[in-house]
């Protein structure tokens, strides 16, 4: 089951706090290798809290864990910045030095893949 969404990436306090402990830690991965979405959208995709979900954009795709966030409207998903989100953010800056990292077209689908570790995600 695949659905299209508007993807926002951004900072969270948990991402910031755990980043200061270390990027190679489990805690950092738990706080950063995630995508937050509305529970109705989760249901539509057949996802539960913590299940693996593949996020794909024209830049690439990555497997992360789903987290419920009813502050998000339907059709909008959020990923904290970090090495996992960086897989789906493109590098075309249109000559400005800065690429789009918010408001991206993404498709999400249920997956059995595991979430990669920091080392694995950086390896390519």
């Amino acid at each position, binding site marked *: 089951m695949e659905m299209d969404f508007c993807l926002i990436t951004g900072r969270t*306090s948990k991402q*910031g706090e755990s980043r200061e402990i270390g990027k190679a830690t489990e805690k950092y991965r738990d706080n950063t290798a995630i995508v937050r979405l509305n529970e109705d959208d989760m249901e539509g995709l057949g996802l539960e809290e913590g299940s693996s979900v593949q996020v794909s954009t024209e830049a690439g795709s990555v497997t992360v864990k789903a987290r419920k966030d009813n502050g998000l409207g339907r059709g909008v998903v959020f990923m904290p910045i970090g090495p996992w989100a960086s897989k789906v953010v493109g590098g075309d800056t249109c000559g400005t030095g800065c690429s789009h990292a918010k408001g991206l077209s993404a498709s999400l689908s249920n997956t059995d893949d595991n979430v990669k570790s920091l080392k694995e995600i950086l390896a390519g």
Partner: protein
Amino acid sequence: MILKENVTCMFCGCLCDDLKVEVENGEIMDVKNACVNGRSRILNHNRERVENPKVRKDGELVDVSFDEAIQKAVNIIDDSKFPLIYGLSSTEVDAQRKAVELAERIGGTIDNTASFCHGPSILAIQSSGAQEATLGEIRNRADLLVFWGCNPVESHMRHPPRYSVTPEGMYISGRSDREIVNVDVRETTTSKMSDKFVKVDPGKDYELFSAMRAYLKGFDVGDAAGVSSNEIEELVEKMKNCNFGVIFFGLGLTLSSGIYVNIEGALDLVRDLNDHTKFAINPMRGHFNVTGANAVMSWTTGYPFGVNFSRGYPVYGPGEYTAMDVLVRKECDSVVVLASDPGAHFPASASSHLKDVPTVLIDPKKNATTHFADVVLPPAAAGIETGGTAYRMDGVPLELDKLVESDLPSDREILDRIIQKVEV
């Protein structure tokens, strides 16, 4: 136990300077007044540290002496035709000055993290100009605050209680004297803190700013950007009729489609509002000393980021000499990363190039870029183990503290050693 007071935090652009840090036997035991981010940074400053300089040999990073690591870094730079120096934001001003000196010496390209953050804001300001105010001005006078495309409750946690939303000011008794509006594509914890939330369609902020400006100038406007014409009119009337208004804006504007054009929309609106009342617009700067990086680059080169020295003088080139472009187009043949982590935060199409070219990393912690580094030079942590100056998001300079000792050299010392040895 020593209690250090009035310590300046070094996590985000708020640079809160009222922290209290308890130090015992040369170790930090507790931090008071900081938010969880600042507290985490200070208390965890020893975790995931790189303790020794490293050089990659046969695919693995191995401990070496500083002399060897510095020499290896120097060799990488000397062999390079188009070196890139990137980062700067999480260290103090003297290290940033040294980074510029190095870039000039080697005819390299130097960029800081603003280029993937508020660089677009700077581009917009270069076109339109901006009316800014220091945070105390806002605390003392602002009765209307608009948080647009930012989420300070998550990213700048003490901003609302210390500078903007709740504190008492000279002409403002507190929260009840202020109206807080939040404009975003989604509801966040900042929205919950606000009196009014306006939902704008993703990528449509420029339309909304334009509609608001048109209404301000007396035109009839319809719905725009997913916001009804009534709401637009109401918002503009609020802004016109306040005593002192401010828009705080964040990456919701800089990283969305339109990039710097979004901010131009905001700047033009605020400029026109100044025909009616007092209005300011302040960017929510992220890394603790990214404002310092722009300040240092501006005074030493004339330009705030994205500078190349190949011709022997500084040339400004957003899109040309900004790090993301240089990496995506694979133009650099070596990279020196100072006080930042492009390995984690750059799009993979940019950071992957770090794998393919010799990379020198100068940062206290093991981070994502460590995985790509060929040389790691660990410095004393700025603001904790070595002092210096940092610039707050509103441009106010603050002195950083040395809280505990470290055997490690500072960033500026490491850079200076490289400067002394590289070929000109």
